[in-house]
Structures are given as structure tokens and as C-alpha cells.
């Protein structure tokens, strides 16, 4: 038994292109998820009781089912109701919707953390709802929602690996393909694991940096 990593590393351009797709889908998906999650949490906060209850159901379903089942349902089940999506689109959509459910909960906790007195005071001095959200609620909850948001972003990075199972040409799929072409499957997977590991640690480090700067800013 001998391992030959050179045959995999010879395919570096392909690996990098897969890495590019992974990062692109991750960043775009996380941003979309965070924005969608914020919108949902805001609707739940200000939309009255019926909206709050109505939006809770899809959140619970998305958080209670595996991401893999969700993307299979979207990608393989979608065509049966006329929703024929490219793997790319299905993957991005899947990550965004799945992540949105978690971000909605993060922002909900954020909204709850702001003392009601602050909002009442803002209403008394005549601030509009939008002003209250942007000038009072968001800055006050920023410090609290930051760590779970970063944590969720890292989780989403790892979830993008599952998109290989619906044939999105991201890093896992690309490197696996290289591994089988070169008859060096284990080597390919070792390199794949190391790249993810580095990427996740990098994301964690950037997250800690952002947190530190934010807490300095608000101190």
C-alpha cells in the first residue's frame, strides 16, 4: 500500500475551480440565507400573531429535517411539479432556504434580547418603524447575533459538500471525480478533507476577528 498525492495535486487547476464554486455558493447562499432570515424574523416581530404563527411552521419543518432530504426533494421532486432546476440553482436555493430558517431563529432571539423599553422610548420620540429597526434594534442586537451567525455560516460551508450529491460541480464532486480518474480515491479524499479543514479554520478565524472588532466598536 502506498499513497501517491502527486497525481491529485497535478490536477490543481481543477481542484481550485471546484474550490471556487464551493466558495461562491457558500458566500452567495449564506448572504441570501441571512437576508431572508432577517426578513422572516422581522415579519414575525412586526406582522402580528397570525403571521408569527404561520411563519413558525416552515421554520420548524426546515430545522427538523435533514438538509440532504430537502435538496433531494427540491432537485429530484421539483420536476414533478414543473420546477426543473439546474443543479447550481437548486443547490444555491437549497442552501439559502435551509440557512434562512436558522438565521430567522438567530434574529428572532436578537429581537427578543432588546429591552421593550428601548423600542417604546424610540416610539415616544417619534421614530418610524424602519428607523426603530435600523437605529435601535439592529445595533443593539448586533453583538448578540454575531457569534451564532458566524457559526451558522461555517455550518453552511460544510453543508455545501452535500451539493455534490445533486451533481453541483463544487469541490467535493470535483475532487472525487479526480480521485476516480487517477485511481487515487483515498488520496483525493485526504486532500479534500485538508482543504475543508483549512477553509473552516480560516472562516472561524475571520469570524473571531470580526467579533472582536464589533465588540470594540460597541464598547
Amino acid at each position, binding site marked *: 500500500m502506498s499513497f501517491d498525492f502527486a497525481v491529485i495535486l497535478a490536477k490543481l487547476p481543477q481542484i481550485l475551480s471546484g474550490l471556487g464554486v464551493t466558495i461562491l455558493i457558500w458566500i452567495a447562499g449564506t448572504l441570501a440565507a441571512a437576508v431572508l432570515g432577517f426578513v422572516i424574523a422581522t415579519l414575525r416581530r412586526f406582522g402580528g400573531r397570525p403571521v408569527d404563527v404561520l411563519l413558525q411552521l416552515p421554520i420548524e419543518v426546515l430545522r*427538523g429535517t435533514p438538509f440532504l*432530504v430537502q435538496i433531494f*426533494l427540491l432537485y429530484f*421532486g421539483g420536476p414533478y411539479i414543473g420546477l426543473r432546476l439546474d443543479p447550481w440553482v437548486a443547490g444555491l436555493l437549497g442552501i439559502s432556504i435551509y440557512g434562512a430558517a436558522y438565521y430567522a431563529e438567530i434574529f428572532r432571539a436578537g429581537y427578543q434580547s432588546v429591552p421593550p423599553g428601548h423600542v417604546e422610548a424610540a416610539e415616544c420620540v417619534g421614530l418610524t418603524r424602519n428607523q426603530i429597526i435600523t437605529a435601535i434594534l439592529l445595533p443593539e442586537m448586533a453583538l448578540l447575533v454575531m457569534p451564532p451567525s458566524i457559526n451558522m455560516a461555517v455550518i453552511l460551508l460544510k453543508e*455545501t*459538500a452535500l451539493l455534490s*450529491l445533486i451533481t453541483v460541480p463544487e469541490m467535493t464532486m470535483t475532487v472525487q471525480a479526480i480521485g476516480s480518474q487517477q485511481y487515487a480515491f*483515498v488520496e483525493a479524499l485526504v486532500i*479534500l478533507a485538508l482543504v475543508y479543514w483549512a477553509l*473552516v479554520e480560516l472562516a472561524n478565524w475571520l469570524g473571531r476577528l470580526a467579533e472582536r472588532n464589533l465588540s470594540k466598536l460597541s464598547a
Partner: protein
Amino acid sequence: MTWKLFSLLLEASLMTIFVSTVSILLGLVMAIILSGLRMSGNRVAYAGAGVFISFFRGVPLLVQLLLIFNLLPVIGITLPSLATAIIGLSLCTAAYQAENLRGGFEGVAPGLIESAEMAGFTKVQSFIWIRTPIALRVTFPALVNEAILILKASSLVSVVGLIELTKMAQNLSASTYQPLPIFASAGLIYLAINLVVAWIGRRAENALPGLPSR
């Protein structure tokens, strides 16, 4: 979508529950050992546990499973897919649970450990009999949370060939061309299992003895 298909999914969900339960428990034992290594005061043990935790939390579970599944035969170990699935899931959850337990271990009042040592407990004894029970009690909600995460993550063990709920859904959807109702049903079964686990977790949390006061 017939009752026959649904009952096949239900049957397969027993495998999901079995694999998840075994993995969570094995992972918990490994997590306690990892915590012990981290607090042992031995630098090598500390670094080793740290690397283990960082690696298994830093690599997607899918990649871990594929790696274990393909690596083991190459180094001469052939295992049934059930064993491979359990090894993969429990290694991964061990890393996450060790991280969860950390807060619990840090929260143990130093006075308790000191009095245990005064009473003649060795370091290992006070770790097993004083620190671990308290850490487990404090982090119990995180354990329930992790159980739900692992139940969902167990859907990935389909890639090592184990027929659990997700793999069964894939097979049925390929043979009946009804992916929509089948994956939706599989999702609902996961949801139902998770709701039950969350409910049991809440009941257990209330039934467990209260936290020691400081």
C-alpha cells in the same frame, strides 16, 4: 404513494434511530475521554485532543464518511457498512460533544474539586465522579440538541451503503418515479422523530435533579 411504500420508509427509519442512538452514546463516551485528555495537564494529550476536535468539526461529515469508507479497506480493515456508519458518525459527534462539554467542565465550582481532593480522591477519580456528572448535567440541553443534529446527519450514511431512511427513500424514488411524495414522507418521518426527541429531552431536563448551587 401507497401505505406499502410508507411502511418501508418507517421500517428504514428504525435503522436511522438505531445508528443515531448508538453513535450519540459512543460519541458521548469519546467526548468525555477527549475532555479528560484536554484537562489532564499533559501537553501532548491536550494537543492531540485539540487536533482531533478541530479536524472532525472542520471537515464536512460527508467527506469524513467517504474517507473512512474508502480508507479502511485500503489499510486492510473490511467492515460492514453499519459499523462504518457508526464509526464515522460517532467520531464526528464526539468532537462536537467534547466542545459542548467544555463549558460544562469549566463551570464546575473549583471548591467541589478541592474538597474531593481533600477527601482523598485522585485526579482521575474526581474527574469521573465529580466533574463529569456535573458537566453532563449542565450541558444536558446541548446533548439533546446534538442528538437531533445527529439524527439529521445520519441521512449521510447512505453514502457508505447503509440502508436507512434516506437511502430507502432514494431507492424507492428511483424504482417508483415518485420522488416528491417519497422524499416529503421521509422528511416528515425525520421531523416526527426529532419532535419526539425534543419532547423527551424537555421531560428529562425537568426530571433530572437540579443544578448544584454555587
